[in-house]
């Protein structure tokens, strides 16, 4: 309800002449005088009757102001500090104050940084309409929480053109600010990933040059690893970088390898699908890419008869359950242990173990390579 502020001197809501752009709208107000020192109930009565007149004259306008979801206040422009003389329900629910706590207060009473010169200048500029930039002001609720608001202020003029009131609407920017913060986190994270990926590419190139001398082999080594990395990214992107299924990951990694006689018959994957955190999926992807590369070049996928069995199980344990993965090759050409640790076996044996904090063993059995990966079961598969 409308009532007179503590700083009121008897004049209030004289004229509402809303300026719309450069045009002066019709005058929609009433004139009223208030006795300076009336007793409270008389004052109250007087105020109420004026509200009735005010509403009768303005009808739809007042109803709109009272019911809109936009927080709105009127201030008395003729008083120092622009005391608030009207506040709608939205304003009260936005700020947490009761109406009687707001009316009569200076407009700036809720500023979170009332002593801050820049904030005061922004508010002042908004009152004087000297800037086209919408001011974002930090306010404080009754409960002490701070919130950002976009402030729009329009003057209300009397018939002689004097500003008698200000009409202020406040748009709560809390959601907007939260989205802004989220966007910033995403951009930071993206930047981080891009730089990290470039560093991985640098490593792939450097190692291709280290392990190969033939330009064709260098090109192939770089390409196949970049594409493996790219496929792992695709998989994680499909899942919003929350997690990836182990089965999907292995299928995706093995997909580009040309296997004579069809992949389906020669690569068998057995195990319940489990969720992997992004980094675990990426590193296992690198590992399986190297195992498959090796199998296609020298192992069970290099002839017509060989096959690969990929299987895994979870071994429960009270402390930390283990994921035990086997890559078993059979019926390939006889296996001999490589004389030199290449990029692939280095990545698998040392790299996987390092990054996944587990053990990785490659057994070069004469009837087929067996790689055993034993890592803690990823706990943070969903929020990783």
């Amino acid at each position, binding site marked *: 309800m409308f009532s007179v502020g503590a700083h009121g001197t008897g004049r209030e809501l004289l004229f509402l002449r809303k300026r719309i752009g450069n045009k002066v709208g019709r005058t929609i107000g009433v004139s009223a005088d208030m006795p300076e020192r009336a007793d409270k109930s008389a004052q109250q009565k007087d105020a109420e009757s004026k509200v009735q007149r005010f509403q009768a004259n303005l009808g739809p306008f007042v109803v709109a102001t009272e019911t809109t979801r936009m927080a709105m206040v009127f201030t008395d422009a003729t008083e120092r500090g622009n005391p608030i003389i009207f506040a709608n329900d939205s304003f009260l629910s936005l700020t947490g104050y009761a109406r009687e706590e707001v009316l009569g207060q200076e407009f700036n009473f809720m500023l979170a940084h009332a002593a801050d010169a820049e904030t005061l200048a922004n508010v002042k500029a908004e009152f004087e309409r000297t800037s086209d930039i919408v001011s974002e002001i930090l306010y404080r609720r009754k409960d002490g929480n701070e919130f950002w608001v976009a402030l729009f202020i329009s003057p209300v003029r009397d018939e002689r053109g004097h500003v008698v009131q200000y009409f202020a609407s406040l748009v709560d920017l809390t959601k907007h600010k939260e989205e802004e913060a989220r966007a910033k986190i995403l951009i*930071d994270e993206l*930047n*981080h*990933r891009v*730089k*990290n990926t*470039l*560093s*991985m*590419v*640098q*490593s*792939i190139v*450097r*190692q291709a040059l*280290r392990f190969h001398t033939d330009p064709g082999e260098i090109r192939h080594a770089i390409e196949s690893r970049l594409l493996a990395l790219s496929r792992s990214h695709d998989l994680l992107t499909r899942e919003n970088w929350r997690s990836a299924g182990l089965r999907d990951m292995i299928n995706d990694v093995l997909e580009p390898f040309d296997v004579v006689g069809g992949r389906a018959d020669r690569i068998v994957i057995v195990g319940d699908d489990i969720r992997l955190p992004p*980094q675990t999926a990426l*590193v296992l992807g*690198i590992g399986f890419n190297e195992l498959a590369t090796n199998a296609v070049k020298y192992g069970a996928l290099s002839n017509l008869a060989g096959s690969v069995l990929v299987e895994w199980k979870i071994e429960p344990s009270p402390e930390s359950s283990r994921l035990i993965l086997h890559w078993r090759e059979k019926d390939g050409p006889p296996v001999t242990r490589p004389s030199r640790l290449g*990029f692939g076996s*280095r*990545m698998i044996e*040392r*790299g*996987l173990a*390092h*990054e996944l*904090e587990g053990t990785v063993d490659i057994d070069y059995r004469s009837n087929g390579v067996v790689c055993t990966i034993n890592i803690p079961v990823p706990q943070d598969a969903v929020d*990783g």
Partner: protein
Amino acid sequence: MDKSLSGRRILVVEDEILNLAMLDDILTEAGCESVAAAATIDQAIGMIDERVFDAALLDIKLKGKRAYAVADALGARGVPFVFVTGNSVRDIEDRYRDRPVLRKPFKEEKLIKALTDLLPPRSPDDNQ
């Protein structure tokens, strides 16, 4: 081959294996006596407690977590170190403002220089 890190024992705290493999190669080729690798904060702190290092490379983000605990442990032991980060903007806590930072990706020469700058020059008879 530049052997400017000859005889040095370096700790590399890095959780990503491709990056680690590259750092390992570069440091070994530069003559380091040993390159130890840690992938997690706990592993790194355990190694700092048990072993002696001349210098360390520390990726500031390990499995999504900030690795300042490792920086603190290195500082307590007096092991000089270089931060490694994937961020292109300033993202290191103020108290570590004075520490050198390498931003990924970086040139080999920059890595070697960052480490040699940290280490006191060695006299010729100081080797081994």
